[in-house]
């Protein structure tokens, strides 16, 4: 098995995937990206009897299926083969708006935690006043950086509420908010409206 050749493994890793991939835990030449965010491991219950499925024995998969799976590479998903920057799957607007919602949410968590820390251990109002006085040119971009996640995440959240709670007709009726063209449209509107509103908030 090739994996036992440590020297070859190291060469392959450095040649193709660089230190970043190494640091994130991908191992061997068949890890073309940090799949599963834990490297190239086979998921815990994949193809095995579990609380989720009864396993693959009913299909007639061979008894050494586990060993075969471990040798197989994962096909490219987000990023292209051997790259951490070039995209592979062509993400539609809906997917981009969804990941932006997650990113803005994480940014808000981090931002509010930092602001809370400063407020609790020091003087938040004072810190803000001194920032405004010392860096007057940075005030507008900073306001923009703070307002955009707030506005986007709020509007994105409202959209999720509408999706989850609105009355959906039959599958064949193309009238719901979850039809593909409407999702694309709403994603573009969400982005545009967020940019506009956050610019407004930053100017005022």
């Amino acid at each position, binding site marked *: 098995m090739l994996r036992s050749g440590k020297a070859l493994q190291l060469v392959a890793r450095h040649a193709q995937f660089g230190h970043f991939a190494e640091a994130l835990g991908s191992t061997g030449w068949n890890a073309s990206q940090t799949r599963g965010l834990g490297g190239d491991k086979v998921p815990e219950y*994949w193809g095995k009897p579990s609380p989720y499925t*009864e396993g693959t024995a009913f299909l007639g998969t061979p008894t050494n299926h586990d060993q075969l*799976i471990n040798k*197989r590479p994962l*096909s490219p998903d987000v990023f292209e083969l051997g790259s951490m920057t070039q995209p592979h799957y062509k993400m539609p607007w809906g*997917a981009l708006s969804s990941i932006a919602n997650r990113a803005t949410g994480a940014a808000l968590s981090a931002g509010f935690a930092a602001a809370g820390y400063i407020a609790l251990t020091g003087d938040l109002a004072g810190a803000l006043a001194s920032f405004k006085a010392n860096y007057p040119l940075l005030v507008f971009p900073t306001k923009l950086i703070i307002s955009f996640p707030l506005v986007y995440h709020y509007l994105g959240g409202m959209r999720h509420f509408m999706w989850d709670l609105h009355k959906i007709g039959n*599958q064949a009726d193309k009238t719901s908010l979850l039809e593909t063209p409407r999702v694309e449209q709403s994603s573009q509107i969400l982005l545009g409206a967020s940019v506009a509103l956050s610019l407004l908030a930053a100017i005022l």
Partner: protein
Amino acid sequence: MLTAAVPQLLRAAQVLPQALSAVSFLHTTSEVSQPVAKAAEAKPALFKEFQVYRWNPDAPEAPKYVSYKVDINACGPMMLDVLLKIKDEQDQTLALRRSCREGICGSCAMNIDGQNNLACLSKVNRDPAKASRVAPLPHMFVVKDLVVDMSNFYSQYKSIKPYLQKKGSSDPNAPKKEIFQSKDSRAKLDGLYECILCACCSTSCPSYWWNQDKYLGPAVLLQAYRWVIDSRDDFTAERLAHLDDAYKLYRCKTIMNCSQTCPKGLNPGKAIAKIKQSLHKGSPV
């Protein structure tokens, strides 16, 4: 019987014009009009580059894209035609799944130019300046080249019990009666029963990528909903309860990649939203 007559008819058709010309008193046209075959206007060769994901389980190399140049003017219009032409003429070792060539079996599902689609329904982009990229379904274990391991997907489909379950007598010898269903109830199944289980949707879902063993995925959940709102099925409550855990249904984050990529135009994201509403309400929505 008819097929036996065809060769005889053909022979008669061949002989007839010559026979007619021989019989001069019939004043047939002096030149026997044989079907004149127009010289087929040969199209100029138009080569386009196709980068196809290749991996051989028997060779120790890493997966890679191999470039093939194909004359798309001498080939059918769909990606499947191109792939089979490559397999015929350039590289017999290319492995791919295919069967019906008309978008109903679901075998040739793959990632073409970044989107999951059926190769037999995916028209080749005729711009020769752009190279087309063909890869297997995303985040699946590759058996060889474009063939992926679908066994986990099928075991997930089995887990939702995709068959009619009736309460009452389980006596197999009891006389079977027709189970009536109103037109409105039957209309609820439109957009659900047409699924061909090609797995384009599930393998386009980032949530399924990260939790492939526990999250059921849009294809299986679409079918779960198909049985939930089937008025003839008596085990609706059990079906809904089966989905009520942290992973099987609720890993869906309404990313909606599934509906965007479905080659049959179905909407799994919408069906999943309806399952969530049903669980919230306690009865099928």
